[in-house]
């Protein structure tokens, strides 16, 4: 038996889920569980109650608006996003999800879980920041919309506070996007990653170089301009067993330029 004793509820509606979160301050939302179950085994997290979101139909589904806006339910799995005909309106979404871990993890892991864990090495935080997505959060105080850039507050911390739930991610129309990374093995954890969107201006979000994605806006999509903008951004990445701070800083320039180059090709 690896986990501490824990309570479990599988609500069928958002209201019920918010009710359990309000009643149990030590409760945590359980999405796909591909991170949370493991950190519970390690006792790095010990929630009193798990609120399983799997039965809440409001959190599922992918909708494509007539203007090309995509609405992604927080409980959409990577595999569902990869297979979605609607999501091909923004091809980078499926492309990046196909680089996450392995088949089994992609089958269970959700986009909402990926962003709510706010792990600085995850793929989706920089991607949604670069795309200018909006996150819808509901809680006891009602519903609000948080721009992706403001959603990530720190390592494992987001704007979805205690008693609140991320319900959907809204991605505006656009096609010229890119993503590049240097992972630990194919589809492994990223050492550095970068997402780029060139729809109008050039917008790059760097991952793994700080607690939250770092936005850089080069004046042009030229590689030289991107390198320069990342160099001037003042990032001070962490050092660890996989890369020194200085090496990460240099990699950030390279992956940012690659992401912008891909974006320039129209994805």
């Amino acid at each position: 038996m690896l986990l501490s004793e824990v309570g479990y509820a599988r609500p069928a509606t958002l209201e019920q889920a918010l009710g359990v979160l309000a009643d149990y301050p030590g409760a945590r939302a359980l999405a796909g569980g591909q991170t949370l179950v493991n950190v519970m085994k390690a006792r790095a997290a010990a929630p009193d109650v798990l609120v399983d979101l799997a039965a809440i139909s409001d959190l599922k589904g992918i909708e494509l608006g007539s203007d090309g806006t995509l609405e992604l339910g927080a409980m959409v799995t990577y595999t569902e996003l990869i297979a979605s005909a609607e999501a091909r309106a923004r091809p980078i979404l499926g492309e990046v999800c196909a680089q996450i871990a392995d088949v089994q993890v992609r089958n269970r892991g959700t986009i909402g879980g990926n962003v709510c864990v706010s792990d600085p090495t995850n793929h989706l935080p920089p991607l949604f920041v670069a795309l200018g997505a909006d996150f819808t959060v509901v809680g006891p105080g009602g519903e609000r919309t948080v721009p992706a850039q403001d959603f990530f507050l720190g390592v494992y911390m987001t704007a979805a506070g205690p008693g609140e739930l991320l319900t959907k991610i809204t991605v505006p129309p656009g096609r010229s996007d890119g993503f590049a990374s240097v992972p630990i093995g194919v589809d492994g954890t990223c050492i550095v990653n970068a997402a780029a969107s060139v729809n109008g201006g050039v917008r790059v979000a760097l991952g793994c170089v700080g607690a939250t994605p770092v936005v850089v806006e080069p004046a042009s999509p030229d590689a030289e301009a991107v390198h320069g903008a990342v160099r001037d951004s003042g990032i001070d990445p962490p050092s660890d067993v996989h890369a020194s701070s200085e090496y990460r800083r240099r990699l950030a320039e390279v992956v940012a330029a690659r992401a912008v180059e891909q974006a320039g090709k129209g994805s």
Partner: protein
Amino acid sequence: MDVVTSQTVSVEVNGTTYEREVEARRLLIHFLRDDLDLTGSHVGCDTGNCGACSVILDGTLVKSCMLLAVQADGSSIETVEGLSQEDELTTLQQAFSDHHALQCGYCTPGMLMSATALLREQPTPSDDQIAKAIQGNICRCTGYWNIFKAVKAASGQEVGE
């Protein structure tokens, strides 16, 4: 809304329905192995990395160490025990034997479930699709090449030396 620390879990595993009282903290792999005595699925790493515990849950390949048994309530599960009928190996299992795709055999139950899931979706997978399909399964004996060949052969494709 009730919060429980244990509940009755009802699952269908390889066509048989089981009902057990299970603690919420119990992982699906331990439920399968210790409660249902279906010890074909293995615990390799317990951290979600090795894939030895892979099973097919409602048609979807999952690692059963990253799922609580209570999350699987009401679902239909396929494990390695359910692959062959009446002591006859499946084409895939026979291909594993023919191509020496196992040595110690510890990863094999997970490899077989991953390959089974692949071949249902892609009856004639490309080399890249085979490699991607077993990406979540670690084998420390074979170097993967023989497993790759076995999966390719099971799909009816020519396998080089």
